[in-house]
Structure formats: structure tokens, C-alpha cells
């Protein structure tokens, strides 16, 4: 699943993740595309606080940073 959080400021990209994580299967990934500079540290911190796995950063086609999370529970 990919979420578009372009233009959404902290803490909204993390809220988007939290609202949709249950829609992917355990073991599957969800990716949030976010241009807010706070998303990079906060997605990782959210994974730590919620017990999910941070699976890394990539780029969307337009160059927007994309952060991928694996649902662990």
C-alpha cells in the first residue's frame, strides 16, 4: 500500500501511517510518500514506539522521499 502525504506537515504523515497500518497484512509493507522533513525521523521513531519494522527509504517517481514500514503485529 502507498500513501500520498505530499504537502502534509508533521505530524500528519505519521497519522496517515497509523490510520492505515491495519489495512495491510502482518508481514506486508506500507509506504508513505512525504515531503515534510520531519517525516524521515518520525516514521522511524513511530516504528520503534509501535513495534513495527522500518524497511527503509526510497524515492517516488517525482523524487519525493518514500518511507516503507513492515507491519509486524
Amino acid at each position, binding site marked *: 500500500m502507498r500513501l500520498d502525504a505530499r504537502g502534509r*506537515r508533521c505530524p500528519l504523515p505519521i*497519522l496517515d501511517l*497509523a*490510520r492505515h497500518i491495519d489495512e495491510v497484512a502482518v508481514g506486508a509493507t506500507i509506504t508513505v510518500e512525504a515531503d515534510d*522533513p*520531519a517525516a524521515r*525521523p518520525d516514521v522511524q*521513531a513511530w516504528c520503534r*514506539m509501535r513495534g513495527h519494522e522500518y524497511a527503509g527509504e526510497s524515492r517516488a517517481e517525482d523524487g519525493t522521499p518514500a518511507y516503507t514500514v513492515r507491519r509486524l503485529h
Partner: protein
Amino acid sequence: MPGFLDAASGAPLHPAARAALLAALDDGWADPARLYGAGRRAALLLDAAREAVADGLGARPDEISFTANGTQALHAAVLGTLAGNRRAGLQLVHSTVEHSAVLHAAQGNDASVPIGVDPTGRVDAAAFVAAARGPQVGAAALQAANHEVGTTQPVTEVAAQIGGVPLVVDLTQTLGHAPVPDGWSVAAADARTWGGPTLGVVAVRTGVRWRSPHPEDERESRRVPGVPDVPSAVAAAAALRAVLAERDAVAARQRALVERIRNVVAATVPDVEVVGDPVHRLPHIVTFSCLYVDGEALLSGLDRRGFAVSSGSSCTSSTLEPSHVLVAMGALTSGNVRVSLHAGSTEAEVGEFLAVLPEVVADVRAELGATGL
């Protein structure tokens, strides 16, 4: 000033500083370099202020120069040390959590070597030493303690292992609050943080190579050009003397209040991370971050209830970038609050802050629709 919990940005003027400032506005207004009576009186006041600050810092008076503010002191410390040690190399080794003034000074230097920190904000001392001992290093910069999260840094340990490389130590937030660590070659301090007026201090150890990054004149041991602000120097020195006389007692009280904030916030605010080293820390600064909270809304909510705090969240900065300190630590940056106490901060004030905080956080989360996530 009840509810003022942002002393690290500048504490309220200490009563001793106010009295000294008013007296020095009358007696120390003249140019201290002039040879008439009023000039000589200003020079005497400036000398006495320099001696008091040197004493507080563990330095010799001729090692001390006054700058306009703490940021300029940090700039002068970093740039002057690099300029004085060009022959050794151009590289500046620094931690990733230095004050932005140190990082800004380093930006003009292409050869900066940032050294990372652990999740508590403490620099990797072994990596820092290894980098500082490398080739082409002109200077190293390590803060005595972090200004946002309070974690102290291994300054003395690092200084003992980097040979002849000059170590620039940021003492802003430390001087007046905690012992000054041994081992600095060049140091910078900020009078606002100990209840003085807006004034910076740069200290250069005798024998350390340092060259002014500014056009030079005869002022301030040729380190800071232009007439120094004598009344502010007098007031800063008076505040420092007063603050140091009761430092340990104040610090013990502040440590207890900070411990209470750390414990109560963790217990009463859901989804919160208290950041910074729990033990090896400054007595008066404590920081925490709240999940699903807009930092700007949190600051406004607290302000409406009469509490002034600062934040490292991106939405509270003019650049919309989160605090580089929190990022370097891998800490949550949303809903960030830094509480910093001054000598007059009371238990009742802290208690009231802790009483309203959970409700303010809950209100911000409710507005964002972030309840139950």
C-alpha cells in the same frame, strides 16, 4: 515570572545583574580605551568584570573577550581556532548535536567531519578521538552539554586523547549551571543563560593558536573589534558571581524538579518519549516528544494556560525543519517540548505545568483526530 519555563533561551535578568547594569549605565558608559576620567572608570569596571568572568570560567582575565551575544562567541571560537591552525589542516571535527551557531560556522568550511551521537545524544567518543587524530585536522568542537536535551558530553575524556588538536568547547547552558569541564582550548559562553544581559564570552587559552576571523583592532585582546558593551559586561559578571555562589544548591533543587518532570510526563502523557540521558545531564533542561502532536499547537495551548516553553518540532521553526539534535539522536520530533528552569523556578509552577500538560496534549490530539491510534 510564573510559568516561564524557557530559561535556556534566556533567563529573566538576575536582580544582581539589574542593579549592576543600572549602576554601570551611569559609571561605565564611556569608551574604556580613552585616557580621561570617565574612560578610566569604564576601563576599571570592564577589568573587574573580566576578572569575575575569568574566575567563574577557570581562566585568566587576558584569556577572556566579550562579544555581542552567545552566537557571536561561538562563531568567533570556531572560526578563530580554524584560522589560527590552518597550517595543521582545514578540517573541523564536531559532534552532530552542536549548537546551530557552531554548525553554521562549520558550513563555510568544506572540510567538516561530523561525528554521530547515541540515542541519548552523547557523542561517540572513540570515533570523535579517531577523527580528531586524523590528518589535516585544524580543530575539534564539542559542547560541554547539549542545549536541547541536556546530555553532557565527554569533553575531558576527549581532550585528553586528541593530542595537540585545539578543542573548542561550547559552555553556553553549562557555565552558571554545572562545573566547567577541564580540557577546553577555546570556549564560548552566553550570559543570557545565567541571568545576565545579552552578551557573549569567548575564552582562548594562553598558547592556543587563534586568529581573529574579523578585521582586527586593539580591542578585547585583538579578538573582538569595536567598543565592548561595558554595562552589559558588568551586569553579566555580577549575575555570574551571584549564580555561582548558590549554583550547587540551585542545581540540586532543579535536578529534583527535572526528575519529577521526567517521571510524571512519562506516567501521565500517553505515547510520549522523554529524551536525553537520564543521569549524565544538565540540572535545568528536560525534553520530551509526544506522538501525533503538532508542536506549534502544543506551544500555543501551553501559552494560553500561561506556560512558556520551547520546541524542536519542525512546525515551530521558521525553516520548517525539525531540530537537528533530535534528528541526530533518532528521537521523535513531533510534539516536542523543552522545559528549562531558572533559579527562581518553583515546585508549584512545575506542579501546575504537569497538571495541565496531559489535557493540552489530549486537546491537540483530539483536534487532529488522533485519538485511539
